[in-house]
């Protein structure tokens, strides 16, 4: 498996509290992604990064912010958590391109519950 970890792996928090999830990679890959996975919705992209301090929104970015100050770390922040943000969050990395194959490697996931 690619060197990608997520922390924490499980978290329970209350509505209105800030939450930060961390993704750490040891592969020196350029691209990093945050997804959320909910039953019936598959994987939905929240934000992604194409380099240090270079980020862009995905399809479900409202209520989330990200930061990438180092190649190896990509942080996802919920400024004020809501119950609708209860989900499993996956970080993924990709790159460099190998024969134009843009494979994504996924982390183990973080299960977040907002009460």
């Amino acid at each position, binding site marked *: 498996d690619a060197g990608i970890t997520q922390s924490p792996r499980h978290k329970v928090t209350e509505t209105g509290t800030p939450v930060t999830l961390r993704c750490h990679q040891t592969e020196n890959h350029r*691209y990093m992604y945050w997804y959320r996975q909910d039953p019936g919705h*598959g994987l939905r*992209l929240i934000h992604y990064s194409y380099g240090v301090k270079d980020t862009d929104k995905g399809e479900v970015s409202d209520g989330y912010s990200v930061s990438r100050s180092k190649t190896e770390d990509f942080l996802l922040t919920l400024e004020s958590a809501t119950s609708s943000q209860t989900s499993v969050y996956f970080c993924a990395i990709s790159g460099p391109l190998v024969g*134009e194959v*843009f494979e*994504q490697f996924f982390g183990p*996931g973080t299960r977040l519950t907002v009460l």
Partner: protein
Amino acid sequence: GQQVMQIPQYQHVQEGEDFTTYCNSSTTLSNIQWYKQRPGGHPVFLIQLVKSGEVKKQKRLTFQFGEAKKNSSLHITATQTTDVGTYFCAGRSGRDDKIIFGKGTRLHILP
């Protein structure tokens, strides 16, 4: 915006039967990828298709990319219990860095 539809959502098959999942995009894709996620696990890359009409095989798995590069399929021959999981397609349009995932097909094998 780009949408990737995947059917069926669920599929129950007897062990030894074949299984197929289909993926359709609202836009022409530059490539399509397939991932497998075991229960409780994370998605794992299976393959990428790039060329129009491309067909690739991995043992009992056959992947196809449509001529118009807007649809794809994954076919598993003679399913085994190890095939249990959710299969996702993921499409990329143009040179965009984003990949849009289908909602997945959950495969359940009946012994």
